[in-house]
């Protein structure tokens, strides 16, 4: 779901202004932009890697580029699309260097993570985290960009520097695989009921 804090026109204008100041070497502006992005980038990178050191490396590599290249931002896209595009490239390289999971997962047929019904939302979210790690890196990132960060198909295509249809295809395969790994997602009503019961108790 889109984060309203970052989606409003005012926040976009603020980020554009911050980038312009960073291009002039304004360190305060840089720190403000870093703090704006750190939490959500850390969150989605942690879900993808489960390693904070790797997530931090990707964030700092991304903002190292932002510091040096802020002057190259021309406003053709939203600042968040530009920054996440850098993060995507850094994350893809870092994840592949850290492990060859993405390539391995293209050939390994995974079993469902559990045959049991999750006890509640927290448990289902944990299983979802484990399932996401098993997706190829491009599919993982597409899922996070769509469902967590709330980007449109066109924005994800810009971030991943690929055609719109490629984004749709990546999500299509990711959804199919997630449903195999987490059958509970295919019957959301039952899972939601379980979750409600869990919260009530």
């Amino acid at each position, binding site marked *: 779901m889109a984060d309203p804090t970052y989606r409003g026109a005012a926040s976009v204008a603020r980020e554009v202004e911050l980038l312009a100041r960073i291009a002039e070497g304004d360190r305060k502006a840089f720190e403000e932009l870093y703090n704006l992005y750190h939490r959500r980038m850390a969150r989605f990178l942690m879900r993808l890697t489960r390693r904070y050191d790797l997530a931090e490396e990707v964030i*700092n590599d991304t903002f*190292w580029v932002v510091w040096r290249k802020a002057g190259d931002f021309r406003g053709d896209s939203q600042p968040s699309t530009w920054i996440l595009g850098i993060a995507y490239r850094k994350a893809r390289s870092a994840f592949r260097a850290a492990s060859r999971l993405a390539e391995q997962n293209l050939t390994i047929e995974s079993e469902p993570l559990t045959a049991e019904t999750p006890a509640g939302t927290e448990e289902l979210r944990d299983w979802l985290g484990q399932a996401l790690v098993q997706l190829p890196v491009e599919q993982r990132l597409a899922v996070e960009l769509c*469902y967590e960060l*709330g980007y449109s198909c066109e924005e994800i295509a810009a971030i991943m520097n690929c055609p719109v249809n490629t984004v749709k295809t990546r999500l299509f395969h990711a959804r199919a695989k997630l449903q195999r790994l987490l059958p509970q997602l295919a019957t959301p009503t039952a*899972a939601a009921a379980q979750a409600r019961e869990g919260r009530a108790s």
Partner: protein
Amino acid sequence: MNMNMHMASAHDETWLLLPWLANGRLTGAQRSQVEEHVRACASCAQELSAQRQLCALLTEPERVTYAPGPSLRKLLDRIDDRTSVPGRAARAPVREPAPFGRLTAAWRPPGLAWAATFLLTVALGVLTATAYHWSRPVYATYSTARPAGEVLHVAFDRSLPFGEVEELLRSAGARVVEGPGTTGIFGIVPSGSVAPRAAGATVSPQLRVLAARLHGDARVRWIEPLPAEDSQGSPPQDH
């Protein structure tokens, strides 16, 4: 048939777009078309529920939040390490030193430059001396025209016993002062000579007479050619 194909196509297209209907980023006519299909298609409706649940799961507040402070400090340290002047210098294009500039930079500090220059000068001197030494011949043949001297170099028939050589020389009025070397060359002087004359002296008449005597003996295989009478110099030396 066409209607069925149209339905299948609409279903596939809707299926692909459901994630963006779920995250609220589908707009306009596309959104209307997808919503219309979902109302009529049970599988798409179920998939939309699954997609919304996925969105809800992934956007729920995290149990753990990550403080940006320590990471930011690391990054700022990294920026400071690469920047002598905070701010612009990090982004300013680094001017590549010219090749000659790089070379001179390597000579710093000055003390090192002087030491290296001194060593280079010494090495150059040694190299020049060695090259001069190597350029000089390390041997000379007896037939090479050399300054004439007192010693006459001769070679006898190899089958000649040493005693017979002595007898031959005695009868010719000569005595051995050099050799024989590995090539069988003897250095001889007229019997009356006390010592070889200094280099640069002219050939003595006695030496010429001795050479003439030996020329007539068949047992003498080779006699060092002597310079002409009006020439200056010393005899060739055996090395």
